[in-house]
C-alpha cells in the first residue's frame, strides 16, 4: 500500500543542515498497524508528516496505492489528503466555534457533499463512537477523551485507507488514552491502515509492527 524509497528530509536551521530523515526505505501493507517510537528529534513526526503529505521529502520516492505522490501538484495532494488520509493530532485541533457535529462534518463540507448525505454519515459515525448525546456540544464542553474521539470521527468520516495518529494519547489521562487507542484499534480491525507515533511504550507495543527510529533512521522493525 505504501512504499518509501530513499526518503531524505533535510531542514535548514540557520546555517546548519539537519538531516531529519536519512535514507528511509519502508513498505507498509494494507491494514497494517504500525507504531513509530523513538526519542525526540529522531524524525518520527517528520516521517508521519511525509506519509500524510503535510511535508515534502527533500529526495526519494513515495508511492501510495501504487501512485507516485511526491510529484503531485498542491491541489492534487490536498485531494489525496482529503480522500485517502485521516489525521489524529495530539492537541485534537477541533474548531472551537463549531459543535462536535460540525467538526466531524467538516471534511464532507470541504469535499462538497450534499447536506442530507452529510447528516446521515455524521450521525452513523457519532452513534458508533457513542457520542450522539454530545453532537451539539462545542469542544470546550467536552472532556479530553471525547474531544479526541470527535477528532477520530472527523479523521475517518471520509473513509480513508490510511489513518495517521501523532501522539493521540499524549494529552489524555491513561484511562481516556486507553479508550482512544481501543477506538483506533477497532478501526484498524475494520481494515484501515493505522500508523501511530507515540512516546508511550505501553501504547507502542500494542501495535502489530513496531518501528524504532534514532537520528532519522529506522533502527528496529519488529513484528508480532
Amino acid at each position: 500500500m505504501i512504499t518509501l524509497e530513499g526518503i531524505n528530509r533535510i531542514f535548514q536551521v540557520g546555517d546548519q543542515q539537519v538531516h531529519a530523515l536519512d535514507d528511509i526505505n519502508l513498505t507498509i501493507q494494507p491494514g497494517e498497524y504500525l507504531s513509530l517510537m523513538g526519542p525526540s528529534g529522531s524524525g518520527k513526526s517528520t516521517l508521519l508528516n511525509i506519509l500524510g503529505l503535510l511535508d515534502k521529502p527533500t529526495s526519494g520516492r513515495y508511492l501510495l496505492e501504487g501512485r507516485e505522490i511526491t510529484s503531485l501538484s498542491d491541489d492534487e495532494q490536498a485531494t489525496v489528503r482529503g480522500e485517502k488520509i485521516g489525521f489524529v493530532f495530539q492537541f485534537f485541533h477541533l474548531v472551537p466555534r463549531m459543535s462536535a457535529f460540525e467538526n466531524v462534518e467538516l471534511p464532507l463540507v470541504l469535499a462538497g457533499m450534499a447536506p442530507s448525505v452529510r447528516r446521515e454519515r455524521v450521525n452513523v459515525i457519532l452513534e458508533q463512537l457513542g457520542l450522539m448525546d454530545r453532537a451539539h456540544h462545542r469542544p470546550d464542553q467536552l472532556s479530553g477523551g471525547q474531544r479526541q474521539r470527535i477528532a477520530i470521527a472527523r479523521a475517518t468520516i471520509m473513509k480513508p485507507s490510511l489513518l495517521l495518529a501523532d501522539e493521540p494519547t499524549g494529552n489524555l489521562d491513561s484511562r481516556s488514552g486507553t479508550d482512544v487507542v481501543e477506538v483506533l484499534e477497532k478501526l484498524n480491525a475494520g481494515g484501515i491502515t493505522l500508523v501511530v507515533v507515540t512516546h508511550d511504550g505501553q501504547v507502542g507495543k500494542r501495535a502489530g509492527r513496531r518501528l524504532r527510529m534514532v537520528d532519522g533512521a529506522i533502527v528496529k522493525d519488529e513484528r508480532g
Partner: protein
Amino acid sequence: MLSRDFIGFSLSSVMAHRTRSILTTMGIAVGIAAVVLLTSIGEGVNRFVLAEFTQFGTNIVAINPGKVTTFGAPTGVFNTVRPLSLEDSDALNKIPYVTSVVPVVQGNAEVEGQGRTRRTMVYGVGSQFPGAFKFGVAAGGFLPDDDPRAPRAYAVLGSKLKNELFGEANALGERIRVGGDRYRVVGYMQSKGQVLGFDLDDTVYIPAARALDLFGREGLMEIDVLYAEGAPAEEVVAGVNRVLISRHGGEDFTVTTQQQMLDVLGSVLGVLTFAVGALGGISLLVGGVGILTIMIIAVRERTSEIGLLRALGATRQQILRVFLGEAVILSALGGLMGLALGIGGAWLLHFLIPAMPVHTPVSYILMAEAMAVVIGLAAGVTPARRAAAMEPLEALRAE
C-alpha cells in the same frame, strides 16, 4: 465545497466574534449611511429644482437680446445690438413647429385699485401667455389678441394681488392704475404658488407694448418661443436664428433652449452630489482599512485552523475563498447597516423638515451595497492570499 457552505463557514467565524465584527463593520456602515443620506439629499434637491423648472414644459426656447460671446478685439460700429421688438416676436410665429410666441417685459410698479396700493411685479406679455406656460385663468379671460402695437388697456391680476386689492369681491370690469396708467381688469389667474422664491400670484399682466411704454424700454427683455411636443429643438433654433438674423442683419441675440438650461443645472447639481458622495467615500475607505486590519488579525489567530483545513483536504483556493468570503460578509453586513441608517436618516429628515426634498433612488441603494461588497473584496484579498499561501504543516504547528 458548496457555495452555501462557504457562506455558512465564513458566517460562523463572523458570528463567533460578534462584538468585534459589529465594531469592524461600523466604519463601512457609517460610510454607506453618509453616502446614502447625502446623495439622497442631493438627488432630492436635484429633482425639486428640475420640477420647478420644468413645470412650464420643456419645449421652450428663450431669446434674449445681445450675444454672449467674447470678442478678441473691439468690433466697432458693426457690433451694435438691436433690441428685440414686438415685430420680431410676430415674425417668429411663422417658424415651423412653433405653437406660440410670448414677448416678455418685466418690471416693478405700483398698482392701485379700490383705494389700495400695492407694489408688485408687472409682466408685459402677449395673449398666448397662459397657454404657453400652462397658467389657468380663474375668472374672466386673459388679455385679448389685440394688435400688438396698439393693444387696449386691459389687465389681468394674479390671485394674490386680486385678493389684496379686491378681497372676495368681484374684480372683473373694475378699474385699476398700474404705474399711474388706467387699466380695466378683464380676468384673474388661478394660484400658481412660488417658483424658486418668486411669487407668481403677486403679479399683474398687461400687454407687452404698454409695459414697454411704462418702463420706458426700447425692446423686449425676452421672447419665449414654444414649439410642438416632440419637434426637433435644433430645427426650431435654426428657424429662430434664420428669421432674426435676416431681420437684424447679424446675430445680436442669444437663443437658449430649456434643455440647455436643464443641462447646466443638472451638471451643477451632479457635481454637488458627487462631492458629498466623495465625502462618504472617504469614510468607506477608512472602513475598508478596518476590515483589512481585522482580517489580518483573524488569519493570524486562526493559523492552526488553516493548517487543519489543509490537512482535511482543503485546497489553497478554498482557504482563499473562506477568508475573502468573511471580508465580504463583514462589509456587506456593514453596508446593510449603513443602508438602514442612511434611509432611516433620510426618512427622519424628511419627517422633521418636510420642506427638505429627499429622494433615495433604488439604484443608489444597490450601488452603495455593491460598493460595500467591492470594498470587502479589496480589503480581503491580501489577508486571504496570505492565508492561502501558508504551508499546511507550519500552519498546523502554530498555536
